[in-house]
């Protein structure tokens, strides 16, 4: 009886492994990789949130999809391509350089250039508008008198 009990106690720890299959979320390395990737992807339901931070159902499903694909050994780029082929470039927070995104990428620089050209143009124009002030001999004398008053007038 005693031996049987001891045997049972010895067997007991093996049952602790018989829990649920470990969720992929428990794998810290994979989870970190998934979050790193999902931070640069847009959640389509709450559009200003990333896939990593969104709590919408779809984001949850997509995170699981990303985990599954990582588990299958797909590279980050392959997973991004997979999502883009379904949801479009819209899922990327970092839009790719394409013919229709040229304005997005270079528009601000174009605006800056337009501003600079306008500024230079204005400054040149102003230079011609304001004539160089010339001082007559009489004015110079007055200015000198004002700037250097005679000593005796000081109190």
């Amino acid at each position, binding site marked *: 009886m005693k031996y049987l009990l001891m045997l049972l106690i010895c067997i007991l720890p093996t049952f602790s492994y018989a829990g649920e299959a470990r969720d992929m979320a428990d794998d810290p390395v994979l989870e970190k990789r998934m979050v790193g990737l999902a931070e640069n992807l847009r959640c389509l*339901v709450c559009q200003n949130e990333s896939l990593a931070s969104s709590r919408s159902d779809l984001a949850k499903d997509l995170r699981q999809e990303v985990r599954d694909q990582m588990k299958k050994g797909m590279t980050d780029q392959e997973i991004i391509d997979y999502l883009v082929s379904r949801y479009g470039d819209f899922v990327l927070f970092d839009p790719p350089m394409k013919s229709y995104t040229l304005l997005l990428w270079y528009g601000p620089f174009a605006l800056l250039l337009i501003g600079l050209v306008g500024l230079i143009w204005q400054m040149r124009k102003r230079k011609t508008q304001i004539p160089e002030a010339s001082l007559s001999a009489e004015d110079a004398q007055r200015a000198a008198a004002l700037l250097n008053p005679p000593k005796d007038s000081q109190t």
Partner: protein
Amino acid sequence: MMRFWPFVVFVVLAVFLYIGLGLNPHEVPSPLINKPAPAFILPQLQDTSKQFSSQDMKGKVWLLNVWASWCVSCREEHPVLMALASKNIVPIYGLDYKDKNEDGKAWLRNGGDPYTLVITDADGRVGIDYGVYGVPETYVIDKQGVIRYKQIGAVTHESLQKKILPMIAELQAK
């Protein structure tokens, strides 16, 4: 002349902002338009022991309507689909997206069933393949199994008349 410039800039900005007001940020153009519809095999809602394969639809123009009993806009869309179904123009296949089977069945019992057949996508995997991000969504799929149009949000009488029905007529004539 110079002093009118701020006004011109203001008008240009106002026009851009006005156009921006009319845009719906939730309508994301689907990259799947003019691409083959992702193939799937899913159980039927009314009898889950039977399956339906999207391949069976080759040679037919059909609508794939993604809906769910928990979806509010689907209620708004439902009478429009019922009206369309009564005209017998095009088969409407329903994809019950991330729903409990009992809830989906109850919804059809109470509100009427416009669908030729309903299939269930309980875990939303086929939904991901189709780029579904908000229910309802409706796809027009042609005889070659290519997605020709995607309606995001509820199908309305207006979108039916303007877009979907003319497109179906054109595709069926091919």
